[in-house]
């Protein structure tokens, strides 16, 4: 059917033929699955553009509206429930994640972090398996919080799509930098499509709000162009 062309647009069920593989091994990312009939083929399972990284990694860049937790993802979530030593965190995924009270920097059995229902946390996905509920931590392997933890309540949270967050996380994207020249602000972007930010002025926060709303439907290219004009 279709020979493999990087950058081509594929629809679910379409077969991608003649893939490059190293030692007969191919690493496939989201949006693709193995073709059962032919080992040298892949089948698209989402609609998107084929991407390739040498030597043997393929994935489809597609839109994905509902977040599915993946291990080591950095996410922003809302505490929905407190039961004993565990917190339930809503990530916008199918199942709410669990976060132990002890998984904060400096937390012990006696000293527990001050977390309330409705608070926002920036956390890392420790475990994500489709058969199990996802597990979050707010510390790294050295028991340090780094930038993880409970986010202050004087910010604001918006829900957008994962496309936007991916774009914002790309260091080359000038959007946040351009904005940073206007006024100082603090931002946390979770890969799950939730963005937390705060600025000194309410007005500035509103600007951020509106900007994300507008940027949601724009492509990389458009945004870069606009930013360039404003330089």
């Amino acid at each position: 059917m279709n020979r493999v062309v990087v950058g081509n647009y594929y629809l679910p069920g379409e077969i991608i033929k003649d893939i490059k593989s190293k030692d007969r091994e191919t690493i496939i990312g989201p949006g693709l699955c193995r073709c059962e009939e032919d080992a040298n083929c892949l089948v698209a399972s989402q609609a998107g553009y084929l991407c390739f990284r040498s030597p043997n990694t393929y994935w489809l860049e597609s839109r994905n509206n509902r977040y599915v937790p993946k291990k080591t993802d950095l996410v922003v979530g809302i505490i929905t429930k407190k039961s004993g030593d565990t917190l339930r965190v809503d990530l916008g995924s199918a199942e709410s994640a669990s976060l132990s009270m002890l998984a904060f920097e400096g937390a012990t059995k006696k000293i527990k972090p001050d977390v309330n229902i409705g608070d926002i946390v920036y956390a890392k996905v420790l475990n994500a398996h489709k058969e199990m509920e996802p597990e979050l931590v707010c510390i790294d392997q050295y028991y340090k919080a780094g930038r993880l933890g409970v986010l202050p309540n004087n910010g604001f949270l918006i829900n957008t799509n994962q496309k936007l967050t991916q774009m914002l996380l790309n260091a080359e994207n000038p959007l946040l930098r351009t904005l940073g020249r206007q006024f100082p602000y603090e931002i946390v972007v979770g890969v799950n499509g939730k963005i937390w930010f705060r600025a000194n002025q309410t007005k500035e926060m509103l600007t951020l709000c509106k900007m994300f709303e507008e940027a949601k439907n724009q492509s990389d290219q458009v945004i870069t162009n606009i930013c360039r004009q404003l330089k």
Partner: protein
Amino acid sequence: MEVDTLKEENNIDRLKCDLGLLSRPDGSALFTEGQTVVLAALYGPVEVKMQKVLVEKASIECIYKPKAGFPCVQDRFKESFIKNICETSLAVSLYPRSTILVNIQEMQNHGQLLSCAINAACMACLDSGIDMKFLFGSVSCFLMKDGELSLIPPVNESSIKGMFVFVFNNTKGEVIASHTEGLFTAEQYHDALEGGRQMGVAAYVKRGTRSPFVCHLSLSERRGGTRRHDNDMLLPLRPELGDHPGYRAMFF
């Protein structure tokens, strides 16, 4: 067979699709086929109810709402039909212990409602970015009293002898689902199937001659996508955000 009535071009023109016009659902599509309009919206995978947990796959719920009156037995039939099709074509095993909600709303009915609803459901799935085994497309074929077949609902309803609804997949153009009305012979069924497949393959599923709505999707994707031709590298991080894997973990 006499496929004069099965001309592709004018049929494709009758199709129109608009994606993502609702803000709440994960995926939505407004599908127009002639003068029939159906809106579909998909949420998923989302939290599952205790009674409906399936350990090895996602449970699919389909809700069909007629535009007037209470939902009746006939609508329940449509729900179950679309639900079964979705179960076949979505990669349900990737989302165990969750629910995929497919909502269908009739907006305007001027014939071939069922196939329009099925197409809308497919486009909503596509829009949501949920993993699918294959796409599906549905075609309604009308059998006239004089034995002719038509893909367009005839003006005069009394001249219809039978009606076929086929659902094809886009991998091999096989029949996933079939529903019929009226009396017909085995030959007529085959002719309709063949005609429907020609149309279906041309309009919905086959690459190259993708129908306008699929093109529309790819177009909007192309404009809005985060694709980068020049740089295959994984996206590095914003320095102020710490050691983030950048692009989401993509290796299973």
